[in-house]
């Protein structure tokens, strides 16, 4: 397919229909369209599109992502202290922009709605000439925008998206995910839970009734059952639920001694608060202390739950208290600029920006196909997660996963989680054709022109 489906600023664009229908006097200049790719930067700058939720329940996460993006752009353009550019194992980036072009960016508001997110991404591609779109704070939006980028022929560097589907059923050749996923969370958590709570446990699942919730629940159920746990029940809770008491109340009676909350964001805060209010954690069932598990932690959101997170296990992609060189460098430059430590969302989008820039440098082009080639199978280190690999087959990053626990004695408002274990990459890896990820088709990269 070799036709422009989207506008490409600064280039001559044609399409059969429009060309025929509108016999306008043409005053064009520029290269022939077949030569390039979508939004090929022709001037001295290159534009990246940062598409994050700025309104709605995830606005604070979006704001933190934007901070990280701005920091990344600053570092790429040679400003600041360079952050993780100094610790990154690939040394292609020189602090002079990308491929010598100064990095500029545009921002948009996804509103955490697929429609709005796609509208915003389209405006970045069509109006602002963005060559890469990145961001997002939920899987539905990430999958929607990833699909759009595939059609449009630009690279999508996913932000915070944890659903198995993003690099499973809905994977796309132009899309890349640095963040971990539901399967990895489960695989990392299970051994820790086994060590702490034993193998003779019965779990009760509350699951957000939408795609992410289902994949998360499926993953964690499979992982815990593999080590001998029983599953008492899995109750789907409507997305719009604000008061989870009706779902939490029957838990104690069910014979279960572990409650797994497959919720994220506001749902997680509210369901966890309800569970703690009901005093579940002080109870004993089957002669064992009742426990609560939150498979995916977000530190920003966990603040909303206050003291309720204390002692509760979960997993996270990254945490600022990590002490490797990369994390330290990132926390330092982020903290000095903004006065507080970055969130995992900020970390993943910073990494994604760096990875994109580095891939462009190594490929010597912004062409999505060149970048995809450079990223596929790319092994790197120094970005805070240890040795990491972008798997070529599904564009998922494989790296260590952090198992964390709500801290009992936090020293500051940011100090909510403590790292319990760094689960090595080998333990969370899965085959490309694993049942939970099957059904997708990466397709081939689309340069859009």
């Amino acid at each position: 397919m070799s036709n422009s489906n989207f506008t490409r600023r600064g280039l001559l664009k044609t399409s059969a229909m429009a060309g025929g229908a509108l016999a306008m006097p043409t005053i064009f200049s520029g290269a022939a369209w077949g030569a390039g790719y979508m939004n090929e930067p022709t001037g001295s700058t290159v534009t990246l599109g940062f598409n994050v939720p700025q309104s709605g329940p995830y606005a604070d996460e979006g704001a933190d992502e934007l901070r990280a993006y701005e920091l990344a752009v600053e570092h790429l353009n040679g400003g600041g202290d360079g952050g993780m550019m100094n610790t990154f194992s690939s040394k292609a980036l020189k602090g002079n922009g990308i491929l010598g072009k100064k990095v500029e960016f545009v921002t948009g508001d996804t509103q955490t709605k697929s429609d709005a997110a796609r509208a915003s991404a389209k405006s970045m591609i069509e109006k602002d000439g963005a060559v890469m779109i990145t961001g997002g704070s939920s899987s539905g939006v990430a999958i929607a925008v990833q699909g759009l980028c595939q059609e449009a022929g630009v690279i999508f560097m996913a932000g915070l998206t944890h659903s198995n589907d993003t690099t499973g059923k809905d994977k796309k050749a132009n899309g890349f995910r640095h963040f971990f996923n539901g399967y990895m969370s489960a695989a990392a958590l299970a051994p820790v839970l086994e060590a702490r709570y034993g193998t003779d446990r019965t779990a009760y699942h509350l699951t957000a009734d939408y795609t992410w919730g289902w994949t998360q629940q499926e993953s964690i159920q499979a992982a815990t059952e593999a080590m001998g746990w029983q599953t008492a029940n899995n109750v789907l809770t409507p997305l719009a639920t604000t008061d989870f008491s009706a779902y939490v109340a029957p838990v104690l009676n069910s014979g279960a001694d572990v409650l797994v909350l497959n919720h994220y964001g506001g749902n997680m805060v509210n369901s966890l608060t309800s569970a703690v209010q009901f005093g579940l954690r002080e109870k004993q069932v089957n002669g064992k202390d009742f426990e609560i598990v939150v498979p995916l932690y977000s530190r920003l959101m966990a603040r909303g739950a206050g003291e309720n997170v204390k002692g509760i296990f979960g997993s996270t992609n990254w945490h600022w208290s990590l002490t490797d060189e990369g994390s330290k460098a990132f926390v330092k430059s982020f903290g000095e600029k903004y006065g507080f430590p970055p969130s995992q969302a900020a970390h993943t989008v910073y990494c994604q920006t760096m990875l994109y820039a580095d891939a462009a440098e190594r490929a010597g082009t912004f062409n999505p196909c060149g970048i995809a080639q450079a990223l596929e199978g790319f092994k790197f280190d120094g970005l805070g997660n240890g040795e990491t690999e972008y798997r070529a087959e599904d564009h998922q990053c494989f790296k260590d996963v952090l198992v964390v626990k709500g801290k009992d004695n936090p020293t500051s408002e940011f100090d909510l989680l403590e790292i319990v274990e760094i689960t090595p990459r080998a333990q969370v890896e899965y085959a490309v054709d694993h049942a939970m990820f099957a059904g997708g088709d990466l397709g081939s990269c689309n340069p859009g022109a």
Partner: protein
Amino acid sequence: MLGLEKKDTSLLIIVAILTMFAPFILNPFPEGSALAQFNAGYPDLMQRFVIFGIFAIGFNILFGLTGYLSFGHAAFLGIGSYSAVWMFKLLGYNIIPGIVLSVITSGLFALLIGYISLRRSGIYFSILTLAFAQMSFALAYSVLTPLTNGETGLQVYNSDPQYFHSENMPNIPHLFGAKMQGTYSLEMGPWSFDFNTGYYLCAIIMLGMFYLAIRIFRSPFGLMLKAIKTNQTRMNYTGLNPRPYTLAAFVISGMYAGLAGGLMASMDPLAGAERMQWTASGEVVLMTILGGAGTLIGPVLGAGFIKYFENIFSKINDTVLHQWFAFLPDGMENFVITIIHPFVGKGWHLTLGLLFMAVVIFLPGGLVEGGQRITAALRRRAGRSGRSGDDASSTDTTPAE
């Protein structure tokens, strides 16, 4: 012309000119200039303007004429989108079957929901429609996932049958081979104008729908609807049963919404459940009231106004502000930016809320009334009574209740 009165004809012609030249009108600022941020002439937003225009025109046929305030019209938009995407999945990417089916299914749903809801009036009717729409949304998001693909949104996968898809046809929505995303870009010095196939298709359909709306407004049927709005008792004692009229209006406006939904899916083949949420229904209510309920052009203006804010204001970030005010001394620059900052970018909702209030406080008839006041003022200044610019006042400006 076309069976329209003179003033309606001129209104239609003005709207036609505006939509046909929209790529120029919406891109007044040269590429790369500071004000280019305010350009709205890119394909996606132009498509949205006309698609939401259709949605609002249809909503106005119900609300503006009969006064029945439906709070669930987004359900028809969503149903239209789902129908269209299913056609893409099953038959192929030609948009005709999708659009046709979207109008039919939304019409059927409107018939069912309307038949039940119209048994009540006033706020009871509003809540019934709201309840139906919220149920559709909740189910589409969760239980009906096999049909709607839930949170992710319904989309076409490579594994879908697409029985009529052939190799030489594009793999994106198209009309007999003409791709909806196809864009022809015209560079004129520093300016750049985009001519998008999908936009022109939507624009032509919107003009047709606008024409149909004028015909409905001016028809005996339209007169009956207005009569229902002012006095149902008299309707009854005039031997007229209001129910078939309101039901017809409900179904027509539901079909308009379905058409808008089908077009949305045709421009961008993904249908998400949020399209059916009450906020989406509320949005079209706001568009109509903001523009001027019961007027012909008002809803289109309202739709443009809200979509412009959503897409343009939300993208103004601090970096952009710094570019604009770079000419000011540093202290001043930061001060000005601190003042503006809460109202743009992530604060675009705030500006929108303030504008809602301002419009409804100062312009009770909506934006159309603003237009009327401006033309009246201009005319007074010019000191002559001309026929030109009479487009807004030609319509029925009675505020809706």
